C-alpha cells in the first residue's frame, strides 16, 4: 500500500476480486441440466426444475467450492509463513492425514454415516495438531519450529499407517471404494445444509486470519526477534495454526481430500503479489476460491460422470505453477 511492490500487489488483488465475482456469477449458469454446458437465462425463467436445481444444488456447491478453495489456500499460506518453508501446507502437522484417518475410521466402523465421517475427519485433524504440539514439547532438538516439523512428520506418518491398516481391513466391495473415493475428494454431495455448516466456520476463521495477517510476518522471523518486537510468538503461532486447521478440516470433512491447493495456490499468489502477508493472504484467499471453483465447474460439467476434484486440482495446479515458474519476470515482482 505504500511501497511500489505493494501497489502492484494491491492492484492485482483487486483484479482477483473482480475475477472471483465473475466466476461465481458465471458458474451459476453452468451445469448439466438442461445442458450440456450452459444454462441460458430463458430456460431459468421457464423451467421450474432448472430453478430448483440452481437453488438447491448449484448454489450451495458453488459456494462450498469457493469457501473450500479460500480456506485451503489461506491455511497453506499461513503454514508456509509460520514454518518458513515453501513446501508445506495444512497437511504438515498430521492434519490432513488425521482427517483421512478419521474419515476412514468412520467409513469402516460407523457404516459410513455422512455426519460421522465429517465429524471424524474434523476431530482427528485437530487431534493431529494436538499430537504434533504435544510431541514437539518432548523433543529436545532445535527451536520450536524444527520440533513442530519433526513431530508433524511423525504424526502424519503414524496416521497414514493407520489409514493403510483401515484400508486393509475394509470390506473391498463396500467400504474400500468409499475410502478411495473420499481420498480423491468431490463436492457432488454438497447440499444447502452442508454449505450453511461450512459458512460460519470459514468466514470467521478467514476473518481472523485476515485481521492478524500483519502479525504473520513476525511469526516468520526468529522467535527471539519476534518477541523483541512485542509478539508472543508461541501463543500467536498456536492461535494461527488452530484457526488454519479449523477452516481446513471443516472443508476437508465435507469434501474429502483435495490435494495441492494449499501447497500451490500460495506460491502462485506469491508470484503475483509478493510475499508480504498483508497482500499475500487476501490474494491467496481469492485465488484459492477461484481455482477450486474453476476445477469443480470442470468436474461437474465436462463429462456426464463426475471427475474427482482432487485429480483436477493436482493436474491443473501443477500446470499453472509450472507456467508461472517458467516465466522469468512478472511485472517487477521477481
Amino acid at each position, binding site marked *: 500500500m505504500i511501497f511500489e511492490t505493494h501497489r502492484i500487489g494491491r492492484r492485482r488483488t483487486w483484479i482477483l476480486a473482480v475475477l472471483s465475482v465473475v466466476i461465481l456469477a458465471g458458474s451459476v449458469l453452468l451445469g*448439466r441440466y438442461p445442458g450440456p454446458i450452459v444454462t441460458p437465462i430463458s430456460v431459468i425463467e421457464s423451467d421450474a426444475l432448472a430453478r430448483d436445481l440452481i437453488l438447491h444444488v448449484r448454489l450451495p456447491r458453488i459456494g462450498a467450492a469457493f469457501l473450500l478453495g479460500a480456506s485451503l489456500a489461506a491455511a497453506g499460506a499461513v503454514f508456509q509463513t509460520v514454518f518458513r518453508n515453501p513446501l508445506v501446507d495444512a497437511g504438515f502437522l498430521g492434519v490432513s492425514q488425521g482427517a483421512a484417518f478419521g474419515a476412514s475410521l468412520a467409513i469402516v466402523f460407523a457404516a*459410513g454415516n455422512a455426519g460421522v465421517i465429517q465429524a471424524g475427519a474434523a476431530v482427528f485433524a485437530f487431534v493431529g495438531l494436538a499430537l504434533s504440539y504435544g510431541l514437539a514439547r518432548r523433543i529436545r532438538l532445535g527451536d520450536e519450529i524444527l520440533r513442530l516439523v519433526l513431530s508433524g512428520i511423525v504424526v502424519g506418518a503414524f496416521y497414514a499407517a493407520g489409514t493403510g491398516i483401515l484400508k486393509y481391513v475394509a470390506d473391498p*466391495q463396500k467400504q474400500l471404494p468409499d475410502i478411495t473415493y*473420499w481420498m480423491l475428494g468431490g463436492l*457432488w454431495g454438497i447440499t444447502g445444509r452442508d454449505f450453511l455448516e461450512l459458512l460460519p466456520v470459514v468466514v470467521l476463521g478467514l476473518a481472523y486470519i485476515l485481521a492478524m495477517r500483519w502479525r504473520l510476518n513476525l511469526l516468520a522471523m526468529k522467535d527471539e526477534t519476534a518477541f523483541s518486537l512485542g509478539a508472543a510468538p508461541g501463543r500467536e503461532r498456536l492461535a494461527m495454526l488452530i484457526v488454519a486447521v479449523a477452516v481446513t478440516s471443516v472443508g476437508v470433512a465435507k469434501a474429502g481430500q483435495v490435494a495441492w491447493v494449499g501447497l500451490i495456490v500460495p506460491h502462485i499468489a506469491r508470484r503475483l503479489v509478493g510475499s508480504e502477508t498483508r497482500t499475500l493472504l487476501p490474494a491467496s484467499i481469492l485465488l484459492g476460491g477461484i481455482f477450486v471453483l474453476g476445477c469443480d465447474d470442470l468436474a461437474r460439467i465436462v*463429462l456426464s460422470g463426475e471427475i474427482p476434484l482432487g485429480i483436477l486440482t493436482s493436474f491443473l495446479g501443477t500446470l499453472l505453477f509450472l507456467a508461472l515458474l517458467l516465466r522469468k519476470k512478472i511485472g517487477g515482482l521477481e
Partner: protein
Amino acid sequence: MLVNRILARLAWVIIPGLLVASSPSGQPSPLELKDAAGRVVRFDKSPRKILIIGHGPQIIAHLMFMFPESRDRLIGWERRGATGSDFIPFIDPDYAKRVFPGPNPGVEQVAALHPDAVLIRGISLEAKGEALLKVGIPVVYLGLENPAQYRQDIDRIGRLLENPGRAETVNRFYQIRLDRIDRGLSGLPEMEKPSVLLGMTLKRGGKIAIEVPARAWMQTIQVLRAGGRPVWLDTAAISTGWTVVNIEQIARWDAEIIILVIMYAMDPRSTIEEIRADSTWRAMRAVRNGEIRAFPSDLYGWDSPDPRWILGLSWLARTLHPGRFQTVDMKTEIEAFFGELYGMTKADVALKILPTIKADYR
C-alpha cells in the same frame, strides 16, 4: 495254403495289436479344460479339495453349491466380508467344517490347506494365481461377469466335478429363462424400450448423486437384455468401476424408469420414500409417475454377478414390460431358483429367503 500261412503270420501282429489297443491304459485319462483366462488346465483326476480365493469368492461358492459334489470337495473360500456367506449355511449341513482363510491369504497359507485345485474369479492372470502354480497347485479362472461367461463357467465346473449332466441342468435353468425373456421381447421396436437409469445410492451426498455401473458389468447387461435403454452408456467408465453422476445429469437424462440399488446399510423402502418426497427428485418424470424402484435382493443382491442375477433379470423384464411378462410370477421364480438349483423346499424358501427381501419384488 499260402494265404493261410500269411494270415497266420499277420495274426501274430494284429491280435496283440488289438489286445494292446483295447486294454485300459496304465493311468486314468487326464481331465482337461480351458479356463476363463484362456489357459489349458490339466488334472490327473477330478479334484477333491477345492479352495476359492480372490474377488467375490462367495459368488463362486454360491455357484459350486448347485452341484452336490461340492459338499464333499469344497474345502472353503476366502472370507472377504464379515462372514463367509449369509446364504450357504442354509443349504450346507457341513458349513461348520468349512475353512475360511482371512482376506488376501498368502501362498503359504493356501498351500497349508493342501488344495488340489484353486478357483479364482477373473479373466486375466493374477499374481496370486501365478504364485500358486509355481508350487504345483492348479488354478482355474472363472469369469462369471455376464450370461455368456456364466454358461461357459458352469460347464467348466461340471467338467471339474465330473458331473456334466448337472452343469447341463443348471445351464438349462438359466437358458429357459433367458429364452423366455427374449421371446417376450421379440418384435419390440427400439422406440418402445423405456429409458432406464440404474444406479447405486451413495452414502455421502446420496440425496443428490448416485453411481452408475460400468458398461461391461452385469447391471448394465441386465437392463439391456430386459429390453431397456440404459441412459448412462456414454458415461466415462467402461470396463470397471462405478461412476458418480450428480442430480443435474440425472435430470438431464430424465429416464422413464429409475431403479436404485440401495447400499446394504440403508433401508430400500424408506430410501425410496425419501426420494419420492424430495421436491427436486419429484421433478423427474420417473418419480412423478411412480416409476422409481429399488432393485430387490435377498441375502445377496439380484443385480450383482452372483448366480441370482437371473432373478434380477426376470424381475427387471417384468418391471420394464409388465404387459409382456404377465405370466411371470416372482414368487414362483424364487421358489424355482432355490428349489431346482439348491434343493430348498418351498417352506424353507418361505421361511429363510422371502423375509430377507427388503424391496418390492412382485
